[in-house]
């Protein structure tokens, strides 16, 4: 359970996040969407305790500002947008970095690394050098590292949180679906999943709860069908949108309506 109230983030003179109140429930896949510069990543960084903010963020009822980094690491894993790595680690060693804190049994750690790599479809890669991977492979390895850190979605009777900042930005469609299914499964097994996504159709398919940000504020918040309406999206993204039902199944699609006459509002 994650509750944020009146969260403000300021960098020097810029006021990036302006009074956000949101909640993300365990068992649910919560997605934060919004145009570039709407404050999605900054909000996520505040929720994970990485940057300073005003307001309150409660994780399972505890104020994260009073928590030690070590305790936070027990309760939440974070997949950043991009990860730099300065030394020639192997894939196995990178995933093992997820088990940095605490005392571990090497045998069990190796098992965990294996399971995490299998979960992201990277089993055969453990002996490869991380720096030699493609962008998509590297991103899946980083996700395996985060998974190894918070492997059980429920720990000690309390839900863990998984924060994903654009987890599928450099993946092909098969792996986009695979990674989001993995995250959804994490939520279904009791964890709290909070992802920043750009793809509105995948947001529609995978999310239980969507938060639409605009200029640092929550524009709308609710179930995908309530938030992903043509009217909301047009207001926030500034381009004409069409929302309709997929011929088979329960899903719906979201498309920009591009015609020769489309005149995009300068944002």
């Amino acid at each position, binding site marked *: 359970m994650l509750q944020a109230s009146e969260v403000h983030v300021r960098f020097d003179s810029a006021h990036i996040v302006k009074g956000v109140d949101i909640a993300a429930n365990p068992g649910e896949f919560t997605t934060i969407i919004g145009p570039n510069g709407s404050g999605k990543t900054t909000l996520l960084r505040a929720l994970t305790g990485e940057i300073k903010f005003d307001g309150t963020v409660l994780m399972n009822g505890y104020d994260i500002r009073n928590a030690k980094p070590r305790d*936070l690491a027990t309760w939440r894993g*974070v997949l950043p947008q991009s990860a*730099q*790595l300065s030394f020639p680690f192997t894939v196995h060693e990178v995933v093992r970095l997820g088990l*940095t804190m605490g005392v571990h049994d090497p045998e069990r750690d190796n098992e965990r690394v294996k399971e995490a790599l299998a979960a992201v479809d990277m089993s055969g890669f453990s002996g490869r050098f991380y720096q030699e991977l493609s962008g998509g492979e590297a991103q899946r390895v980083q996700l395996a590292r985060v998974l190894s850190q918070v492997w059980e979605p429920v720990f000690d009777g309390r839900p863990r949180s998984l924060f994903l900042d654009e987890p599928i930005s450099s993946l092909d469609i098969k792996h986009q679906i695979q990674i989001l299914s993995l995250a959804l499964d994490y939520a279904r097994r009791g964890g709290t999943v909070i992802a920043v996504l750009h793809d509105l159709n995948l947001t529609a398919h995978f999310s239980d709860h969507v938060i639409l940000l605009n200029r640092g504020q929550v524009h709308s918040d609710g179930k995908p069908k309530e938030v992903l309406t043509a009217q909301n999206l047009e207001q926030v993204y500034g381009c004409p949108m069409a929302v309709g039902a997929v011929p088979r199944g329960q899903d719906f699609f979201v498309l920009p309506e591009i015609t020769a006459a489309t005149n995009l509002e300068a944002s």
Partner: protein
Amino acid sequence: MSSTDLDLRGTLDGVRASAARGDRSAVARLVIFILAIALAVAGMFSLGSGATDSSALAVTWALITGDDSAITLVERIVILDIRAPRTVLGIIVGASLAVSGAIMQGLFRNPLADPGIVGVSAGAGLGASSFIVLGSGVLAPISAFFGIYDVPFAAFIGGLVTTFLLYRVSTQNGRTSVATMLLAGIALGALTNAFTGLLVFWADDNQLRDLNFWGLGSVAGATWLKFWAVAPIILPIIILAPMMAKGLNAMTLGEATAHHLGVNVQVFKRIAIVAVAASTGAAVAVTGGIGFVGIVVPHLLRLLIGPDHRYLLPACALLGGIMLLFADAIARQIVAPAELPIGIVTATIGAPFFLWILLKRRGILDM
């Protein structure tokens, strides 16, 4: 993986199999074991070689058993009071240089950060020089307070200030720019050298000789007193350094991810900076500017066992000691019976090595 380290573990299938799966910890443990033996052997040869040529084995045997028949009384004195302090000082200084290099590279997240190259040694040198020149003048009260620890302490302060400034200048929003770091190191080095130059200008003849000899880097003047002046600083850092390993490993993913993984980044950085400054300062205080050990040793070991600091730091301590004894042996042999300052030897080997790293990894400045 090079063919040589494959040969090394040719017979050890388990070690090789785990390395193939990307887990190099078994390889690392094996390498550390071999390095420990190599350091013992190197130490023995260092004790045994010199103007009186008793065999290394005879000397070690005599020292272990206390049986004087194999070596003469003169030899015993030469070995215990002249060679032994030189050997043990060489080992701890080499270990200290290599470990502080590895910590600094981990902290700055790049393999080119070395206390010698980015001006930390120069800062420590300024601290040390100020006590060599002014220790009996303006700084006499402080010198009297610290006793034999005055020069090491001043070197520590000099190193601390430079390391801190360097980190502040080259790190923004948790990311360290390699280019900025190297350039800032040049600027800081130039500034500290200017102040050191001022001290040289003020120094009298005796102090000049001290400064000059010391600036080239040497373990020739090793005494037990010097050893005891720095051992209480260097040994705890070398022994406790592996406690920083997990934090350094996490830091290789950047400060934000280190925080996500549970590292208290601000506190950790302070500890790492103080450790680098203290061990560099102590090494510089007793042996002067011995460059490039801190970059060559960690780099070689990363090729061999990988960058995991849990194994890298102890391996650096061992190989650092071996490399310094090796360089000292060259310094003593090459112009015998005279000897070269060891800093000349390490720079002659190390500087081309540094250039080779640059050649191999051209993209590194863009990181």
